């Protein structure tokens, strides 16, 4: 493994007409690192990835893979990476199996026997019938084709752009397993997503992007303060004591059957202490939900995300 970072982006800027898609972005992925790349749609995740893949030119700033220039050295660099887009489109007159083989052959790695065994394993794990014409595949199945093709080859860096969109939870679990396998083998991964839980499962580090800039970057623990849990509890006692605890925000109380309904947010670091305090109030019912990423953005950055769709 080379000493140069797998991905090194510094002060990257890119505009489309009058729209500033990337505005001074920094992002680094070290060899062996699994980095989550989070942000709402329209934040610039896909643009960043398309720059990394040499599909878009930069306006200014630098973007390097393994120390090489992403635009000038694209063909050489692409031998070492693999990419899964969030919306896969396949050649309609090829079957899924043919698409997988074609993509593997483009990568230029030819150990036929090993490849065939690995392909059979991946097809089985992802429950994909490779003999159907790809025009008849559903969105989820097209996504599986790209995932099988990606995990078929031994890349040093996996660039995954919302790779699980359209997959059911079972298949998401299979995907997570293969990402962990890649991690164990010392590969680097950039996993772009807007699903916090998916990122939490596999990533060591996270970069959060908004309006084309990285707004938070660090290990998951470092970012844990970003995460709060919404709690709704119906209690017999007086919930106002809870309000005074550290890490409790936005407490609202309303009368309810058999007591008071209290709704509030808790910093995850404090959740144990707060729940014990709530338990002392004679709990009738309790629900706790982690806030969505969009809610987090709204809470930490003042205004609503530009485009939450």
């Amino acid at each position, binding site marked *: 493994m080379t000493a140069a970072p797998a991905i090194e982006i510094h002060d990257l800027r890119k505009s489309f007409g009058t729209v500033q898609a990337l505005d001074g972005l920094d992002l680094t992925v070290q060899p062996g690192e699994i980095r989550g790349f989070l942000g709402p749609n329209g934040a610039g995740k896909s643009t960043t990835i398309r720059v990394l893949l040499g599909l878009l030119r930069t306006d200014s700033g630098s973007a390097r893979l393994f120390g090489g220039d992403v635009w000038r050295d694209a063909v050489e660099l692409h031998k070492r990476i693999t990419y899964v887009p969030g919306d896969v*489109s396949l050649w309609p007159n090829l079957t899924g199996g043919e698409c997988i083989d074609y993509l593997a052959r483009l990568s230029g790695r030819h150990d036929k026997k090993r490849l065939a065994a690995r392909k059979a394993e991946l097809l089985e794990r992802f429950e994909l019938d490779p003999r159907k014409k790809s025009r008849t595949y559903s969105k989820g199945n097209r996504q599986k084709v790209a995932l099988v093709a990606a995990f078929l080859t031994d890349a040093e860096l996996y660039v995954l752009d919302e790779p699980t969109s359209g997959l059911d939870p079972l298949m998401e679990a299979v995907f997570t397993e293969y990402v962990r396998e890649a991690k164990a083998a010392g590969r680097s991964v950039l996993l772009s997503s807007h699903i916090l839980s998916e990122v939490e499962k596999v990533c060591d580090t996270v970069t959060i992007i908004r309006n084309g800039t990285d707004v938070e970057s660090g290990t998951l623990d470092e970012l844990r303060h970003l995460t709060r849990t919404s709690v709704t509890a119906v209690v017999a006692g007086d919930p106002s004591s809870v309000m005074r605890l550290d890490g409790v925000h936005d407490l609202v109380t309303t009368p309810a059957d058999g007591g008071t309904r209290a709704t509030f947010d808790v910093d995850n670091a404090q959740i144990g202490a707060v729940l014990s305090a709530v338990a002392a109030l004679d709990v009738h019912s309790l629900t706790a939900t982690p806030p969505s990423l969009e809610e987090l953005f709204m809470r930490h950055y003042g205004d609503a995300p530009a485009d939450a769709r």
Partner: protein
Amino acid sequence: MTALATAPAAPAAVRGPALGSTLAGTGRLLRVMLRRDRLRLLVWPLGVALLYAGALGEYVILGDDPEAMSVRATLMRTPAMISMAGPGYGVDDYTPGAAVANELILWLVLTLAVMSILQVVRHTRAEEESSRSELVRAGAVGRHASSVAALLQVVIANVLVAVVSGLVLVAYDFDAAESFTMTFSVALGALVFGAVALVAAQAMEHGRGATGISLAVLGGAYSLRAIGDIQEEHGSWLSWLSPIGWVQQTRVFVDMRWWPLGLCAAAIVLLITLAAVLGSRRDFGAGLVAVRAGRSDADPALTGPFALAGVQQRMALLWTSLGLGLMWFASGGVVEAVPDLVESVADNPVYSAILGEGDDLIRTFLGVFGLYAGSGAAAFGVAMALRAKGEEESGRAELALTKPVSRARWFASGLVLALAGAAVVQVTGVLALWAGAASSGLDEPGFDAYLELALAYLPGLAVIVAFAAALYAWVPKATGLAWVLFGYVFVVGMFADLFGLPDWARGISPFWWVGNPMVDGVDAAHLWGLCGVAALLLLLAFTGFRRRDLQNG
């Protein structure tokens, strides 16, 4: 359908609910279909009416010239023209009406049959496949409702066409009763194929399969009639197996008879009944013919973008070469009769402007066919070169380019094949022209002259295809301009003299520099010049494509 739903022969297990409930919601579905397709349903009748109007003008001009008409009638007795027209009723006294019926019915039925097939499949199997109709069927909508609504929609479209085109005929002073008989017969013939599509939609699991089978039936009907009519004047028994033949056998404008239309009606009823039986027996989303599973591993030859482009373009190349080749073969077969024909229309300024004043009319005529063949090849080349745009917009280009595949390699793979394919279409087309001419006994000019004609167009073809590629590389939004150039080339080739275009305006067309190799030979300097322009455009295209952003999928 009533007979079917309650047919005593049907096993109890498959006997459906009462007819009324299987048709529930038909009216609402029909309204939605008509609304969704209002543009299509407007474009088809207008297109067909224009087809009529364009053709009728010519017949009316010819009608004033009995000699021209009799030459035309003679042509209509040749096998080539029989295959492209009709059984030849009324050729002994070829009136404009007889000519309209003999020469137009085939094309009108073909056009409207294609429309009917596409519309029926679009609203039945394709809809079912997309799972949109799952939502619809879950509502208060009966099993047969979408089939019936689709059929009604096609009936409405065909009737609309029949009325509009009948009015066009009447406007050109054709007899009203005969005119409307003809247009409604054509509509009825087209509906037979709509009903075929309805059966296919039950049998096949995928919309494309249903369309393919229906078009194959249409092709079969075309061939049966052509063979039958060539075998015997006014058609042999083979002609009577074809719904297109039934429409032509009404002898409209000559000695009209109605009863062949009874065959159309009977076929429609039979096919609808069959579709209803099949529809009652199958599960939603399932077909009767299982889809054959494809390969699970790619062919070892599928090694890179070049091989893939070959897979993507080869069927289009095969069918285009074959289709155009047959047309040029048939055209070659009538060239021998050209001098007679031209003599008879010598007073017509339109024709003489197109054909010019050449001494050797056959060579002039062959030169015009060379231009036609070149235009066909150019259209194929442009369409294939612009496939890259579809690949890029769909995101498939992105999949390939994020592999160790350079932009130049990816771009070249499609483009080289587009250029080669255009050359193949051109050369096979002109050689088919030669084969047609030779088979009708025309041995002068010889093979070498045809080969020269074919090859002389290649540099010009390369310029047109390279122009499309350069547009795609620099301003992908403006690739429509490639088709504008294509249209311009055709107009210059056909009508430059008629419009009195100045030379600089003609020079924009790459084909103008080719001239007519059959008459004037080949000017090597011009061809080298065209090669230079093509090379320059290709260089421009590659430079542009390597430096621009890839569009988002």
